[in-house]
């Protein structure tokens, strides 16, 4: 009995592995962004002597992807008032009209327009970044970190990227001396394939 079950199990596993790899390589797959395992982290110069780091705790969105990048699409929405720099008073100030004005502009979003494969697992995603009510085209170089089955029967994929923006380009022009103009964003996205 054991002798028959083992080869059958192996065959099933190989077929499943083959299917999962072939579909991600050829077919567009839909993913839902897993906000808990995704991150949008930023750093901004403080008084020109160091960086202040922060993150957004609420991330949502969808992803369509295949390895060639053709037809791929990502749509990320971040709740602006989920900003977290580890200091409640500073976070309150960052949410105020002095900076993000989160009541007036509650979301930050990125909608891709095109994906360009630039390497084995490297892509350039061009799209529209809307921040503080201002939409501008940006290009984000990303790397596919990996993909594969999770322990709960799902299938996951992950990307990592970074870009620099100037906050004054997005109308956030207050107190540029104390908090720098250039913002470095580090983005980590994990998607769970939709059933």
């Amino acid at each position: 009995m054991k002798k028959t079950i083992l080869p059958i199990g192996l065959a099933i596993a190989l077929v499943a592995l083959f299917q999962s790899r072939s579909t991600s390589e050829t077919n567009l797959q839909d993913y839902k962004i897993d906000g808990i395992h995704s991150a949008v982290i930023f750093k901004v110069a403080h008084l020109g002597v160091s960086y202040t780091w922060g993150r957004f705790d609420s991330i949502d969105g969808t992803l369509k992807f295949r390895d060639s990048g053709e037809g791929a699409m990502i749509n990320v929405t971040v709740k602006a008032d989920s900003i977290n720099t580890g200091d409640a008073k500073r976070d309150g100030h960052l949410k105020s009209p002095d900076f993000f004005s989160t009541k007036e502009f509650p979301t930050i979003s990125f909608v891709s327009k095109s994906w360009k494969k630039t390497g084995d697992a490297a892509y350039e995603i061009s799209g529209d970044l809307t921040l503080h009510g201002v939409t501008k085209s940006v290009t984000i170089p990303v790397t596919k970190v990996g993909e594969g089955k999770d322990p709960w029967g799902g299938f996951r994929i992950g990307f990592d990227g970074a870009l620099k923006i100037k906050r004054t380009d997005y109308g956030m022009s207050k107190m540029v001396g104390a908090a720098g103009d250039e913002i470095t964003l580090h983005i980590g996205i994990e998607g769970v394939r939709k059933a």
Partner: protein
Amino acid sequence: MDLQQILLYSAILPGVAAGLLLLVGGRRHADFGIGATAAILIPWLAVNNWTWPAFPPPESASALPLAVLVAGLVTLFPAPAIGRRWIRRALGLIPALLVAYYVMSTQKTVSGAWTGGLLILAWVLSAEALTTVRSGWEVPASWLLAFALAVLAFERAGSASAMQVCGGLAAACGAFAVLGGVRGLNCSGAVLPLGVAFYGLLANTHLFATDFPLSAAVLLGVAPLAAWIGELPLFSERPTWMRAGARLLAVLIIGGIGLAIAAAHAPDAEPDDNPYGSYGSR
């Protein structure tokens, strides 16, 4: 900005600009208006990296300098002597309509737009009437106190830019109290830009800052009008110091309650274990 820069751009320069414009001007109605406009725009530009906002304004706060500029230009209007005041009041409708448009665009409610426009109009008419009845230093000194209380309230609400711009309003009133008082002038020309800026700061902070309750905004907004108390029969014929004292006390009580409410709703205090504060200095 450090404290020295804040004092320079939000108190010293606005006060000096308002005072100089009053000194070099011909004691005209417009001198107060242009002086007040300059005193408001200097701190606004300073906190916005010396950048004039795009048009249409990309955010609500960027509408403020445009509305103030229009209000300042209205005070320049060379109306004929007969009916001049009423023509200016009619022109004062322009900033009121701008405020209404602003409320409409941000809140999407017609009732809010009507309320906003009528409130600013009522404020301006009441304040202008007060300055017409009583010239000299008493009224601007009362307003200096009212705006100073609002500066503290904006600071507690975590809105540093509103705090600094409101500092310009207070500084302008300081200059008007000193120079206008010495020359016995009435500062009615300053009412429109001051009113538009003050209303805009209160409304914007209430609508978009983290915690700035409506009750605080209303009390702080009404505080400058509390200076009317000096015109009550009980005080109007009394010595100047007593009349001025009554005005300052009334402003202090009403504005002080507004400040206390704003402080009670202020965002969380800094953590005790951070000796350097949120921004590197206490």
